[in-house]
């Protein structure tokens, strides 16, 4: 199985403060991986470093292409969609415009129109609100919009930063079900960063646990979920 994303000795810095101390991990094509850890462990920083949104050193390779020298928008154009923390919704624009923006780098008009319809199938509530200003949607709806927007890129790799944040448990379950579906049916490799470890481990194949900028544990998701010591020490349950 080929590695879609290869991260070697990734270090990231916010000004003088070092947030990541040499991460090493890789994602296999078609896998759904979760990156777990407590607040401030460096999960968000890892995703941001992959997209060159924070000063980093080391090597990040996506399907053979080196990422760290490229601008964020060029990294995205390689096929990596990043759903940031807080969703990053274009609040002043309509739901449909948000989806169109997801596909702004694509040229295939009819494909884009078809994909928008598919998003409405995945997330019917978006269809209901498609002419509404995105800022008026609820948290859960904005999260769905953010995921849909990311999918409009037809990405090979999707990065999600704490998609469960601030959402009611039932909505999170639905969301994760959809993520699983996208991973299996659309063959999108997914890396999801989560604080809600239990749910993430239910849908993931592999898991990494990060603590203060270092990976302290890695393995198959169900092994980690079954390992009570790991759960208690690192995941809080």
């Amino acid at each position, binding site marked *: 199985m080929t590695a879609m994303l290869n991260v070697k000795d990734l270090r990231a810095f916010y000004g003088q403060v070092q947030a990541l101390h040499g991460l090493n991990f890789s994602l296999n094509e078609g896998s759904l991986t979760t990156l777990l850890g407590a607040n401030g462990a460096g999960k968000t920083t890892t995703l941001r470093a992959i*997209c060159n*949104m924070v000063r980093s050193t080391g090597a990040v390779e996506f399907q053979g292409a080196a990422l760290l020298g490229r*601008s*964020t*928008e060029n990294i*995205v*154009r390689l096929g990596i*969609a*990043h759903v*940031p923390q807080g969703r*990053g*919704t*274009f*609040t*002043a*624009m309509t739901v449909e*415009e948000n989806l*169109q*923006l*997801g596909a*702004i*780098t694509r040229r295939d008009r009819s494909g884009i129109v078809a994909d928008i319809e598919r998003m409405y199938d995945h997330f019917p509530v978006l269809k209901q609100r498609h002419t509404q200003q995105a800022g008026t949607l609820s948290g859960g709806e904005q999260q769905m919009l953010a995921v849909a*927007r990311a999918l409009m*890129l037809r990405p090979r790799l999707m990065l999600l930063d704490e998609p469960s944040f601030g959402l009611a448990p039932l909505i999170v379950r639905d969301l994760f079900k959809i993520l699983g579906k996208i991973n299996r049916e659309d063959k999108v490799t997914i890396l999801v960063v989560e604080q809600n470890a239990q749910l993430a481990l239910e849908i993931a194949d592999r898991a990494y646990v990060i603590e203060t900028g270092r990976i302290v544990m890695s393995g198959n998701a169900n092994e980690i979920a079954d390992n009570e010591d790991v759960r208690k020490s690192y995941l809080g349950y």
Partner: protein
Amino acid sequence: MELFANQVLAGIATGAIYACMALAVVMIYQAIDHLNFAQGEMAMFSTFISWQLMQWGVPYWLAFVLTLGFSFVAGIAIERVLFKPLAKAPILTNVAGFIALYSIINSCAGLIWDFTIKQYPTPFGSAPFLGSQLISTHQAGMIGITLLMLLGLFFFFRYTRIGLAMRAAASVPESARLVGINTSWMIALGWGMAAAIGSVAGMMIAPVVFLEPNMMLGVLIYGFAAAVLGGLTSPFGAVIGGFLVGIFENLVGTYIPGVGNELKLPIALALIITVLVVKPAGLFGRPIVKRV
């Protein structure tokens, strides 16, 4: 009552100048979230270029189009060379940059074309419009061109991909990058468009105020005021604002005694500020909820 109606009409006619300028102001605001003090000078310089072309025998509309193209490219060039390096600098430093640009352009124009007033032609003639003593054909033409630009901008932002991308880059730059938009180039494009629109404003205004390097100062201030009054996020508001400023100015001159030309500007500004105090986002601007 007839005097009032006449003054309003006349105000709309002069207001077309401000509406035109205000469109350019809003355009740049959309791109860089700030007002560019040098925009008037850029418009003035473009107008001089068009004048020079006509001096060399180029017919009006060809000179117009060439100047539009030149201004677009020049706007992008100025942004890339002078303001991209300042992108990470504080806003106030950027403002100092605008002031420096103003100084440079004004000085160069003065050297190249000197400060004597020049006549500038209008393609619309200056006969009374439809027999009215208050609006000339040129002013009507100016209003027409302004409305056309407004329409063009509306379609551009609403219905084109690049217009959507520009709006996205201006509103949430980080998310724009995350969908693959090169936000840096969107800013450059905004400058180019603002420069082009400004050049149209200059070429429309010059027949009225006569061509000389300091012709745009008053116009720019009124243009700012109009844009702010209309709401900086709304091109439509900018145009309405422009007409309103023209009307204010005329009414103030007519009805408030002892007000000569010099006091018109501060009074108009004072009125606008009063409106702002009541409606801080301007008449058509979208008040943004501030998140802590």
